[in-house]
């Protein structure tokens, strides 16, 4: 396979680069929809509801688009071409699990029997979706080993919040109020942000040079004021912290709870269950582990599982199977933290996650995790001579490495941006350690794609030696070059002028 930058494969021509905004297109009176004439008499709105509430005549909606269907289709089709996506590009974005999003998931979500259900329809009208949700709940309970799962949270961050609120409620139910939550220095930013939103102070625990939690620092910090330790395992540098049982024992020894950020569950499906290493609460990210698409930034879903002692605090309502075999919503939970979002959750997303788990089954899930881990370790092995690996193998489903090139002033950002010219989406950058790239291939890529990526990384390392300027100024084949982000936030233009 050729590992040349895809110069000829430029995704848009320069002429299209300045693609006009919707507001710069169309003409007054144009529209892309046809609606039937109203078949009821027009009311006198001013007398029916009062002139003071009405926009005079009809609202002006100044600047609002007026465009025909053909041009609307071209507009969005062109936008869709100015975008890297899993369906077109290898997307080794660490911590994000950009695996293939099966078409059959989308087919299920689009079925009118699922898409056209109103949340307040009578329970007998919605038995199919309730059964689906109930099975998904039990699958996640089995995968985590935890006692009960709520499907309600809207994404990972809301799952974290749900989990921490339950932990707070648990401590309170025992007459304690614990103000502190520990997070390792390698934690994802949502962990400390969630602590603040839950009225808790986030305290940082050091990691050792091999990426594992520094147990001495943990022991020094954990106390009877500590509500929980929020940990990611395999952690964000891509290694499984084998001290996890000791960590759990230390945390539990002080009466604190162990929260698992489940963003990295793609390494563990059917391999190990978080409950078996002492986790009390965890969230899943269906949009990472269970193949629901990322949609340019959502929707996701963040189901949360808890151990037995936290069950009384789960959100309401919960999907249940009744004695007669029918399904229902149960509102009854005396110490519930309440509802964390409208209605029942991101149902369309949860449906896709169900379809995925049903398709893979116990055997497929384990194979997926095995292949994800195999692929990551294979890439690391292929790159180990050209890049610096701060942590020793084996890795879980992802790894971090540091581009370090003698004297050439080429940064991780430059390498990542140069990958774009090879048709590859940049890895996660500069987190969780300085100057790193975090690479997660996922299990759904072919060996050919993995090899192409390895060869592109090696080619870039060569370029750094022979022609560093090309790398430093990448990308070269995109509709735009690097953006002036400083100017963007100094004088923000976040809406089209009035």
């Amino acid at each position, binding site marked *: 396979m050729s590992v040349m930058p895809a110069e000829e494969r430029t995704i848009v021509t320069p002429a299209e680069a300045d693609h006009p905004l919707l507001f710069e297109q169309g003409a007054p009176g144009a529209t892309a929809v046809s609606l039937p004439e109203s078949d009821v008499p027009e009311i006198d709105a001013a007398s029916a509801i009062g002139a003071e509430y009405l926009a005079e005549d009809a609202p002006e909606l100044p600047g609002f688009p007026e465009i025909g269907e053909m041009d609307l289709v071209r507009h*969005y089709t062109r936008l869709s071409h100015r975008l890297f996506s899993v369906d077109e590009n290898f997307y080794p974005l660490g911590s994000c699990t950009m695996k293939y999003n099966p078409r059959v998931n989308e087919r299920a979500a689009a079925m009118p029997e699922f898409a056209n259900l109103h949340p307040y329809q009578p329970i007998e009208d919605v038995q199919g979706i309730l059964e689906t949700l109930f099975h998904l709940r039990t699958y996640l309970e089995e995968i985590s080993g935890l006692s009960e799962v709520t499907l309600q949270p809207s994404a990972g961050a809301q799952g974290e919040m749900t989990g921490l609120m339950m932990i707070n409620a648990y401590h309170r139910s025992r007459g304690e109020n614990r103000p502190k939550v520990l997070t390792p220095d390698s934690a994802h930013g949502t962990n400390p942000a969630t602590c603040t939103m839950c009225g808790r102070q986030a305290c940082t625990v050091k990691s050792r040079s091999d990426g594992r939690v520094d147990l001495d620092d943990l022991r020094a910090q954990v106390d009877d004021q500590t509500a929980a330790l929020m940990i990611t395992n395999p952690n964000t540098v891509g290694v499984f912290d084998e001290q996890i049982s000791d960590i759990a024992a230390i945390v539990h020894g002080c009466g604190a709870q162990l929260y698992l950020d489940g963003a990295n569950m793609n390494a563990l499906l059917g391999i190990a269950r978080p409950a078996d290493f002492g986790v009390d609460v965890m969230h899943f990210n269906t949009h990472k582990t269970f193949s629901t698409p990322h949609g340019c930034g959502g929707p996701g879903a963040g189901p949360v599982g808890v151990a037995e002692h936290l069950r009384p605090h789960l959100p309401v309502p919960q999907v249940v199977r009744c004695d007669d075999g029918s399904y229902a919503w149960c509102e009854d939970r005396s110490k519930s933290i309440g509802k964390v979002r409208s209605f029942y959750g991101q*149902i369309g997303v949860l449906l896709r996650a169900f379809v995925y788990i049903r398709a893979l089954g116990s055997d497929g899930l384990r194979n997926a995790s095995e292949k994800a881990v195999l692929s990551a370790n294979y890439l690391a092995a292929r790159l180990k001579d050209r890049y610096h690996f701060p942590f020793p193998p084996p890795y879980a489903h992802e790894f971090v490495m540091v581009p370090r090139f003698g004297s050439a002033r080429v940064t991780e950002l430059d390498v990542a941006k140069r990958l774009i010219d090879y048709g590859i989406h940049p890895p996660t950058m500069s987190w969780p350690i300085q100057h790193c790239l975090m690479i997660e291939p996922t299990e759904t890529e072919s060996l050919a794609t993995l090899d192409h990526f390895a060869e592109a990384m090696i080619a870039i390392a060569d370029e750094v030696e022979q022609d560093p300027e090309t790398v430093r100024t990448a990308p070269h084949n995109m509709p735009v070059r690097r953006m*002036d982000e400083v100017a963007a936030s100094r004088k923000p233009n976040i809406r089209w002028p009035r």
Partner: protein
Amino acid sequence: MDYTQITEPQTREMLATIGVERIDDLFKDIPTSQRQAGLLDIPRGISEPELLTELDRLARNNTPCDDANTVCFLGAGVYDHFIPTVVDALANQSEFVTAYTPYQAEASQGSLQAFYEFQTMICQLTGMDVANASLYEQATAVAEGVLMAAAVTKRNRVLICDTLHPDAIHVLRTLTYEQPIEPVKIPHAGGAIDMDALKSELNDATAAVILQSPNFLGTIERVAEIATLAHDVGALVVQSVDPISCGVLKNHGDLDVDIAVGEGQPLGIPMSYGGPFLGLFACREQYMRKMPGRIVGITRDLDGKRGFCLTLQTREQHIKRQRATSNVCTNQGLLALRAAIHMAAMGKEGIRTVARQCLDKAHYLSEKIDALDGYNLKFDTPFFREFVVQTTHPVDRVLEHCHSRGILAGVAMKTWFDDLDDCFMVAVTEKRTRKQLDDLVEALGSV
């Protein structure tokens, strides 16, 4: 069926490159005592035909709102509006579906531009200065609005009108439970906010008045008047808005609202049993740097060419960690994109037409129901597309009778309001035909 592509011989080749014998060796850091012995206790994988059979079985156990068998007059925050084919087609383009959050601007101009246009259209619709690129749904948008109002005013007391969607009230309570927020409930009187109660609770410790208009009971609130009262004591107004109503009603900028939040579901998003939906968030320019969620801005690239990037990121958790304005990370990108396509497809005229037809059809139906024996409109307040009906019949019997004729006549109000146990609420979208409206009247008359 597991979507992996690596074959057995390739596995051996890869293991050799890594320098281990078996895949198991790669898991050596997981202590054996914690390894899963054998397969998980969930069914084994199945093929696609088997999967489709299973999905068909589950689907048959649902009775969707499809007009042919079930006509939907349910509302209460989720509405059965028409979604043009072109919206589904474009929003389902796989590049949009399978891309990540646009952190890498050069490779994400398409989604960034679409979000910039979305932000603009939300501003145009609501009359607000700035908008973000989405939150989860109405309820969390309301909660974020409250937190922002408290941060801006440095006050904690918030007046929450009980005509806000009950889920929003509930979620607001959950999500601000650990914050120094002091919620004060303002009751309704005759379907609208009790103005006397509001006046007596408003004081110079008040951060904000949180209301919804049209409210949960359908009533169009006296927002402008409330805004004046609130601003007189230095409090903000957080209004939950219905984007469709902006096609006939005065917008929130004109009403002097400070923060507009709301549910974007009516903008081309299927009802999907309650989600995923789209939290809207817009506000006045001076609060822009405290706004939660992702924001896209216009900037220039190295060559001076116009382009887009995520901006004001120093508000966000990946930079600010515990000092971030909010913990929201993954939000509702694809729904924002879908709503943008829907708004663009509708255009000025489409938005007005839909709003106008909702208004006309809701009023046509309400008059007919009010004229029936045993039914009357509960409130005499102005409404847009939804209204509360009081009946002398048992509400459950009314709803079951209509259901047996393939009509979902409305939602029973006793679920949320003890004092409305003899009431149900009816929503009418532009999709309902005169025949369907007359059929509902006929069904109600024959209980």
